[in-house]
């Protein structure tokens, strides 16, 4: 395992009576693509601004390569930020924008010219060098902002909602593009996003924040399969929940039946709990014996091309269960709204959370 480039040690930030970030500790490794994920107001942007140096922590320390940088001003940190609004200098050409950071370092002009040319090529901006930011499309502006930050060769590049201003199609392309660039330049990326899909696609590891606290930090796969609590489970991907109380080796739900699953440590019998099942883990008309089984009626069908989403009303929960089946399953057995269906899933695919 490579050594941490950035260590966030019990960092807090209070604005008056409001606690924006509350004792967050994270360790980010060299060349990692790290995502800070959470709903708006969770403190992720404040944390990012502290890493960039625009805010000073009211508690804890930020260590960069082992040195405490908590109070180092932004212009003296080997960390760069790509702003959500891109913050391109409107009175300067693309070339001048990208060169700005190197001019601040006092590099000789021949070196600046060469490095800017290289960066223009890397980010495929060659033909736009003399344009002003207002003459660029959203995707082009984003690439200029990225080039302007990357050319400084920072130890860590911070990206604040980097794809937020782009349309959906472009966003998909840029997710791949960002991964490619990060691999090519070999710089640690920390991305702030509220879009869980973006984090799942791009990140090597992700941290989920809520109300200023760190809920979970792990690989996307681990967070998706083993969410730390019901909030993370619902926030990352889609999750079906059934509320009830612990009974035996599962949760006794609305209709009195028990959904079997692995009980978390220290859950006593009778405690309020949520059983959670991913839509893709539910089998329609299971052939073999499954630990959990229920019947329901199709309330709605949503066709997504690759797969089909069913909204199934069951006696287990107030809200209909979402079930995802592949297109060929649907082809083998035509389904219509109102049809009765049978659902089954295993105990190991059932997560149980405190409620």
């Amino acid at each position: 395992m490579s050594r941490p480039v950035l260590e966030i040690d019990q960092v807090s930030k209070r604005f008056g009576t409001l606690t924006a970030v509350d004792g967050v500790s994270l360790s980010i490794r060299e060349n990692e693509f790290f995502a800070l994920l959470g709903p708006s107001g969770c403190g992720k942007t404040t944390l990012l601004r502290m890493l960039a140096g625009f805010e000073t922590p009211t508690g804890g320390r930020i260590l960069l390569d082992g040195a405490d940088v908590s109070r180092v001003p932004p212009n003296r940190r080997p960390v760069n930020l790509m702003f959500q609004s891109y913050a391109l200098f409107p009175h300067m050409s693309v070339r001048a924008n990208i060169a700005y950071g190197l001019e601040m370092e006092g590099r000789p002009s021949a070196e600046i010219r060469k490095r800017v040319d290289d960066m223009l090529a890397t980010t495929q901006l060659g033909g736009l060098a003399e344009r002003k930011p207002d003459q660029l499309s959203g995707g082009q502006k984003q690439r200029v902002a990225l080039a302007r930050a990357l050319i400084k060769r920072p130890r860590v590049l911070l990206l604040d909602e980097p794809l937020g201003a782009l349309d959906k199609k472009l966003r998909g392309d840029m997710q791949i593009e960002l991964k490619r660039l990060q691999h090519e330049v070999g710089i640690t990326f920390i991305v702030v996003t509220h879009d869980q899909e973006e984090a799942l696609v791009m990140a090597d590891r992700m941290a989920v924040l809520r109300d200023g606290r760190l809920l979970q930090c792990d690989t996307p796969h681990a967070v998706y399969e083993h969410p730390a609590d019901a909030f993370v489970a619902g926030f990352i991907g889609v999750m079906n929940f059934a509320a009830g109380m612990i009974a035996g080796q599962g949760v006794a739900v609305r209709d009195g039946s028990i959904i079997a699953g692995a009980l978390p440590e220290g859950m006593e019998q009778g405690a309020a709990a949520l059983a959670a099942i991913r839509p893709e883990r539910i089998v329609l008309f299971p052939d073999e014996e499954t630990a959990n089984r229920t019947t329901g009626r199709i309330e709605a069908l949503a066709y997504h091309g690759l797969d089909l989403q069913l909204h199934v009303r069951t006696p287990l929960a107030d809200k209909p269960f979402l079930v995802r089946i592949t297109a060929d399953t649907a082809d083998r057995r035509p389904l219509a709204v109102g049809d009765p269906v049978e659902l089954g899933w295993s105990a190991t695919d059932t997560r149980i959370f405190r409620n």
Partner: protein
Amino acid sequence: MTTSRPTLLMMPALAWLIGLMVVPCGLVLALAFFQRGIYGGVDYTFTLENFAKVVDPLYAGIFLNSARIAGTATLIAVVIGYAAAYAIASCRRSLQPVLLFFAVLPFWSNYLIRTYAWIVLLNREGLVTQMLRWFGYTGEPPSMLYTEGAVIAGLVYNYLPFVILACYAPLSRLNPELAEASRDLGGSAFTTFRRIILPLTMPGIAAGAVFVFVLSIGNFVTPALLGGGRFQMIGNLVYDQFLTANDWPFGAALAAALIAIMMLLLLVQGYASDRASTRSAPVREDA
């Protein structure tokens, strides 16, 4: 005859401008091409002599002197006004309109009264001298009134709100993330100001500066009251030609030259700000 509604709506303003602006200016210009009557008045014989006199070193010197005084006042007003506008724009949003209101509050009182107030402040036994005495100063009272400094102080004071308003507009619209981006890329606070904030707010500075300069160079009340008639500016000279020397054609030629200078400056400023705004006009995202 059919007249479109926009034309009709424009009529009153147009009549006003033509009747009170274009015609009088035309009359002044016309007057400048005639000779002065022997006992005052106007002798309607064509001559270019008045314009020749305008460029005579004696009078050209007064033009230059006026430009120097107006230029100094402009420079001081821009420095003070920009700093004030910067401070106001950095305050919290809800406070800004209040501060702007206080900045323009002096406009609610008469220009003459405000200028007389400076006499009360600056005369030999005025408020400034009394303040000095109160702090223990016992020497000769400083002579401040009827100096060039007093004229400049009066001009700066009177036209400062224009600069504050003109500079506040671009400063308050400036995205604060631009300054942060400059800091993030390694720029010091001073470099950030010089390379990002100053160029982006230059149109406001130019507008404010041209305003102060144009209003100052043609001003005659302030130099008359605070300069004590010893420091003649073109405004005083024109005033003298019409009302004391009774040389209307020469006064008209001086006035025409002054108007020409002002119009030229306003045109240049208008052209520059026009260029700045078309340059930064955003293209549509989907273009």
